[in-house]
């Protein structure tokens, strides 16, 4: 903090930057006024929901605004030089050597037809006079720096031959190769699994220390920002609304939008019974329809006509702080109290068992007709997508299934809904074994009782059909109403339940926002009054404020219909909030299952422990134990023989883990752990989450 006065230490300075796009309908001011100053070696986080202009700013710094975008006022200076005065040649020289960028999708950032080695070397050979051997040596060294196993070998491979986490490491290595002074990271871990994300985040922090690089870290996830950054800026609708150090922003929050973001995020300590999430009402206004005055005005609880809707609102320093700035006129009058209102009655009596799964397995058969396989007589392989799953679900409860991609959670949903059939075991649903019955053979009553909400809001509704048709079809199909007028009334009721106006029934999906589409999907799933609904990652594609609204909605509708909800997710903080019970899956097997508060405290299964320690938490006061998983998740084609988790387990015991599949142990608080380590020992593990004071 002491080096603040040295002006030559400023790497990037953006002053009153205005960026517009020029389209058919005229000029669209994507970013009206944006200022930012980054010092050498600093790590700065830029947060905000989609559409707030974060990526546009990053693209402007790289000068990649495209043919119809341009800087209309203000300036960007890099290391003291105004970038608008530089020639194309100079800019090209700077990009890649002084300023580098890491994108969200590693697979699309790498060229699939070139080896990793040649792509890495190209960076050096373009920017420096260097021989091919020297370049290769430096690349290998860099790959070692990003903790790539066996770097010499990786140099000769193609991008598709390494995993997603490793691809992102290569992209980071490529960006760091010429030792840039500024590294832009645009959602670098959003496409990765949590445990991989945690290792990549650690890596970025280490590299930054080692090379003293300035980071501009763009993310929608406040939890990651806490881990990586010193300072944070919150963007809303193209402007910075609040910025400050992590502590200032999280503990002395000033701007209503920042409060709003915090209130949307489920915190680890609370579940749906303790607290209700509070979504920010409304949506970001379109860039060319921004209201006069404060752009957050229409969504702000503290909005005062006559003050907030007049003229330009400047960003000003808070009290005496050098770093904390906020763009709000009423900052001294606002005294925000986080919502504490209980979300509903505490856990009800357990209803009857709706779903009882006994040793259910789903294997996919794969025929390998390669010569080697035929010689060995092993032409048939089985992919064990689900193996001996056991659990049950009671009426009105929420059961979450968590696990990383490839753990078999979506296969499980397919078997339940009848898109696939179980290979072994039984799934008793309302007294019938539905495991072996595909959906075409199920009777209407059974189909009606089990419906699903999907992940992707853009794929879940047919773009050719109106909202009314889409909900009405379910009502008609399930024979709830047959008369056209009555169907229309019922569609109206369903829209009411998901809190959308009745007029929406004539709209087409393209006229709806992501959150609205997901609400329609909820209405569609519940229209037939099912006894169980499976929700496969229903909120992971949504912005936090919309996510909060959809979670609340799911909770409310579930309560109203007393439906069992099977919530499939990889986001542990959401899962902790919404679910009564949690099932943790790894490579097709259940590792741990039990009541959700029990899962979050010891004894932990070693895998659960690693997962929990990887969850990004948006609270600088919470210290997490740091457990990082080594290696890659084994392929489902060829899983480890003993315990599925043995290859990556940080608490690996030895031979027994490789050879013998562990038994389920039932702990004192009634939850199941599949591990060889005795329960007593697992119980002594210290909790993952601690407050800062407790840790010291």
């Amino acid at each position: 903090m002491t080096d603040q006065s040295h002006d030559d230490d400023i790497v990037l300075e953006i002053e009153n930057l205005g960026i517009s796009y020029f389209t058919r309908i005229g000029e669209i001011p994507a970013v009206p006024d944006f200022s930012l100053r980054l010092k050498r070696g600093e790590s700065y986080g830029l947060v905000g929901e989609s559409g707030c202009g974060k990526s546009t700013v990053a693209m402007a710094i790289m000068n990649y605004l495209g043919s119809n975008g341009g800087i209309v006022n203000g300036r960007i200076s890099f290391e003291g030089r105004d970038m608008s005065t530089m020639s194309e040649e100079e800019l090209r020289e700077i990009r890649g050597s002084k300023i580098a960028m890491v994108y969200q999708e590693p697979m699309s950032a790498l060229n699939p037809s070139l080896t990793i080695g040649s792509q890495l070397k190209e960076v050096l050979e373009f920017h420096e006079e260097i021989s091919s051997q020297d370049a290769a040596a430096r690349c290998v060294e860099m790959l070692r720096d990003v903790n790539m196993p066996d770097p010499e070998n990786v140099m000769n491979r193609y991008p598709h031959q390494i995993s997603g986490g490793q691809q992102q490491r290569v992209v980071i290595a490529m960006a760091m190769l010429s030792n840039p002074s500024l590294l832009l990271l645009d959602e670098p871990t959003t496409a990765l699994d949590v445990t991989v994300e945690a290792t990549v985040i650690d890596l970025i922090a280490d590299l930054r220390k080692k090379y003293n690089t300035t980071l501009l870290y763009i993310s929608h996830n406040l939890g990651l920002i806490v881990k990586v950054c010193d300072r944070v800026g919150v963007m809303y609708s193209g402007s910075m609304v609040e910025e400050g150090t992590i502590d200032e922003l999280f503990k002395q929050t000033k701007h209503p939008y920042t409060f709003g973001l915090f209130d949307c995020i489920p915190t680890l300590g609370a579940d749906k019974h303790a607290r209700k999430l509070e979504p920010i009402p409304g949506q970001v206004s379109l860039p060319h329809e921004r209201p006069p005055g404060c752009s957050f005005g229409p969504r702000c609880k503290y909005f005062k006509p006559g003050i907030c809707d007049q003229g330009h609102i400047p960003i000003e320093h808070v009290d005496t702080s050098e770093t904390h700035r906020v763009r709000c006129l009423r900052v001294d009058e606002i005294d925000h109290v986080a919502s504490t209102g209980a979300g509903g009655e505490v856990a009800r009596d357990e209803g009857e068992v709706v779903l009882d799964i006994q040793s259910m397995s789903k294997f996919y058969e794969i025929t390998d007709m390669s010569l080697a396989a035929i010689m060995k007589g092993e032409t048939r392989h089985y992919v064990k997508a689900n193996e001996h799953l056991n659990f049950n679900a009671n009426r009105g409860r929420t059961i979450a299934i968590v696990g990383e991609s490839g753990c078999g959670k979506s296969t499980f949903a397919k078997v339940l809904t009848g898109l696939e059939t179980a290979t072994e075991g039984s799934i008793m649903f309302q007294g019938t074994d539905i495991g072996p019955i595909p959906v075409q053979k199920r009777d209407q009553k059974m189909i009606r009782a089990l419906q699903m909400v999907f992940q992707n809001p853009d794929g879940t509704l047919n773009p050719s059909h109106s909202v009314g048709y889409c909900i009405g079809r379910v009502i008609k199909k399930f024979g709830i109403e047959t008369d056209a007028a009555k169907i229309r009334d019922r569609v109206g009721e369903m829209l009411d339940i998901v809190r959308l106006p009745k007029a929406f029934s004539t709209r087409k999906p393209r006229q709806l926002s992501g959150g609205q589409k997901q609400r329609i999907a909820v209405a569609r799933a519940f229209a037939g009054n099912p006894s169980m609904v499976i929700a496969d990652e229903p909120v992971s594609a949504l912005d936090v404020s919309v996510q909060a609204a959809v979670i609340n909605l799911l909770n409310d509708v579930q309560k109203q219909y007393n439906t069992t909800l099977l919530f499939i997710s990889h986001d542990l903080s959401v899962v902790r909030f919404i679910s009564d019970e949690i099932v943790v899956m790894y490579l097709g097997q259940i590792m741990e299952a039990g009541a959700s508060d029990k899962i979050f405290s010891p004894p932990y299964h070693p895998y659960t422990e690693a997962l929990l320690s990887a969850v990004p938490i948006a609270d600088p006061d919470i210290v997490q134990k740091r457990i990082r998983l080594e290696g890659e998740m084994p392929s489902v084609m060829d899983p480890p023989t003993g315990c599925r988790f043995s290859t990556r387990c940080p608490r690996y015991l030895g031979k027994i883990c490789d050879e013998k599949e562990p038994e389920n142990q039932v702990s004192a608080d009634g939850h199941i752990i599949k591990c060889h380590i005795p329960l007593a020992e697992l119980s002594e593990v210290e909790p993952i989450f601690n407050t800062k004071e407790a840790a010291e």
Partner: protein
Amino acid sequence: MTENTNEHADVTETPVQQVANPTSVGDTVTSAEQPDRQGLAKLFYNLGLLRESPAAIIGIIILGFWVFVAVFAELLTGYGPNEQDYTAFAQGPLSAGHWLGTDILGRDIWSRLAYGARATLIIAPTAMACAYFLGILMGMLAGYYGGWIDNVISRVSDIILSFPLIILFIVIISVFGASALNIIIAVTLAASPGIGRIVRGLTLDLRNLEYVSAAQIRGESGLYIMIVELLPNARGPLIVDACLRMGYTVITIGILGFLGLGLPPPDPDWGGMVSDGSVMVTVPGMAYMAIIPAIAISSLVIGFNLLADGLREISVRD
């Protein structure tokens, strides 16, 4: 209380996508401003979008001209198509009473063109409609069900596609005889495997989307999913493809006519007119007999192609 208002305030959401993507900004805005249009109003609105494509406008003008000529052929011509003017054999264009001239039999070329346009514009769309019906059926079944159904349909398609088209036509027409119906049958058989392939590809893309799973989960039949869920979403590329194919079909009909496999003489047929005129091509001043109908064929083909280009431009933009 506050919670309640918050929840309800949510409904004022307007569609917003990423500002980072400039094109999506413009497009979202137009879709937000579009009031709900139903039926004909919507059709006219969408056709109105074609204004912005010069290619489409030229295409529509050319096609409009030929449709007009075909519909009002009786009013626009002074002679019947097969009527011979024994006073004027092989008169060049702009001769008295015959502004495009007459052929060696003294028939008015303009009249024959106009009635020929009628034949072409009836046969080509009808053949296309049949080909699309068959092609969509094949493609949907193959793409949606996959497995052995896909194998059988795809192999049959391959066999037809691997046949030289001309030989196929000659075989069909020489077996069944030359008539409008047989031309339609030949074109349908030849075009539907290609259409089936396109539809199969589109179906493969669409069938893994979540709304299809949602339909399967609520127990919809395969037929319902194919017709109601999948087909409407495949329509964009299919409409463009249909326009292009219509052009090819016009050429095909021309070729058939030229080879004498078109409409039986003396009925006017553009391909047949080129063929009749071609004997005179080498005679000085007589080439117009072949050139004029050839221009008619290519203008119609170009018209369809330009319209297809315009449609594609618009579908890519939105």
